[in-house]
């Protein structure tokens, strides 16, 4: 199914050649550590919004990902659901974001038993992903980009995965550890 969609996307992109002179950002531009994480407010259910600022005072992991319904055993978010107890040891919240609509997200969350908010960057499409430099203009999906944000809302770690490479959870855990170490050092 995805293969078919992407084949279509490839054909579509060939059909729309150079006439559309849109500037396509390269994705070297994910927001870097040290920057204030842009706030956002996105729906997690049809009548419930989640804002980044709701979590001020604790670390937040932002996981932008291309699309719901990737193959089960290689699914990034299913893995994160299993690693959640480890994230919780750092009092960290995980927010996952893609451009899929909320109904797709709800079905996806239920099917994969996800235990964290999955947010819809749906309207205007990809606007939050763009603010984080994590939007792929050509195919209209969020990139696989990860951010670890500290208790004051500053980005402390960011990572952009190459296309199609699920980044796993190791980088997030190391970043959370570094955050804790930095906080301990700051206090002493």
């Amino acid at each position, binding site marked *: 199914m*995805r293969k078919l969609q992407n084949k279509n996307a*490839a054909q579509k992109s060939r059909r729309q050649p150079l006439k559309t002179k849109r500037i396509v950002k390269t994705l070297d531009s994910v927001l870097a550590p040290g920057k204030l994480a842009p706030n956002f407010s996105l729906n997690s259910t049809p009548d419930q919004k989640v804002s980044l600022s709701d979590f001020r005072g604790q670390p937040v992991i932002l996981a932008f990902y291309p699309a719901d319904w990737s193959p089960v*055993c*290689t699914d990034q978010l299913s893995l994160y659901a*299993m690693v959640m107890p480890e994230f919780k040891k750092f009092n960290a919240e995980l927010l996952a974001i893609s451009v899929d609509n909320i109904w797709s997200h709800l079905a996806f969350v239920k099917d994969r*038993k996800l235990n964290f908010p999955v947010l819809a960057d749906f309207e205007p499409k990809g606007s939050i992903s763009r603010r984080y430099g994590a939007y792929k203009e050509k195919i209209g999906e969020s990139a696989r980009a990860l951010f670890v944000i500290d208790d004051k809302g500053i980005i402390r770690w960011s990572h952009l995965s190459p296309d*199609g490479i699920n980044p796993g959870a190791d980088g997030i*855990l190391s970043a959370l550890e570094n955050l804790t170490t930095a906080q301990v050092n700051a206090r002493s």
Partner: protein
Amino acid sequence: MSGTATVARKRAAGKTLLEPTGKETAGKYQAPKLEIPVTPERDHIEGLVNASLTLVEYGDYQCPYCGAAYPEVKKVQKELGFELRFVFRNFPLTNIHEHAMSAAETAEAASAQGNFWPMHDFLYEHQATLGDSIVALGHAKKLGLDTQRFEREIARHVYQKRIKDDFMGGVRSGVNGTPTFYVNGVRHNEDAIAKALIEALTQTKK
């Protein structure tokens, strides 16, 4: 086939991959490394312990993609022979596979009686029977195991800690789903098929 290949996807052995465009990765990407070194005292190793090539798999007995990768690994082993040691570690995705933990415990219980690989192979060759403990018990009998001990250890979850340790070690090494392979200590991001694994193993030979 797809021109710029920006969105060319490959699908093999269950892993869907978008080919990197190069521009986006800008040469910065480094595949994660195996953080938990292979330890003969602890690891399940098939092949010579000091072989020059090492293939590590983090797998889940209930995962269909691991099932598909199983014969591929056999092909790799046949091709590389004594040059290769193959290591299997547990990575049961218990939130989506209800029998994955008990299957891992079954293999570990067989391992405690010196029969890890026969049980490991049996489980992958009979994936459809997972969840029916009688089937694995039958195989344990056939292998000549002390079945009382075998059943007791599974029921008491004696090896669950070890399995969870495997899982967390995998997470720290960047396991991102199942199966995840490490070729001579580096995560294999390509297809989980014999050809790609053999190519990667022999290319990175030191």
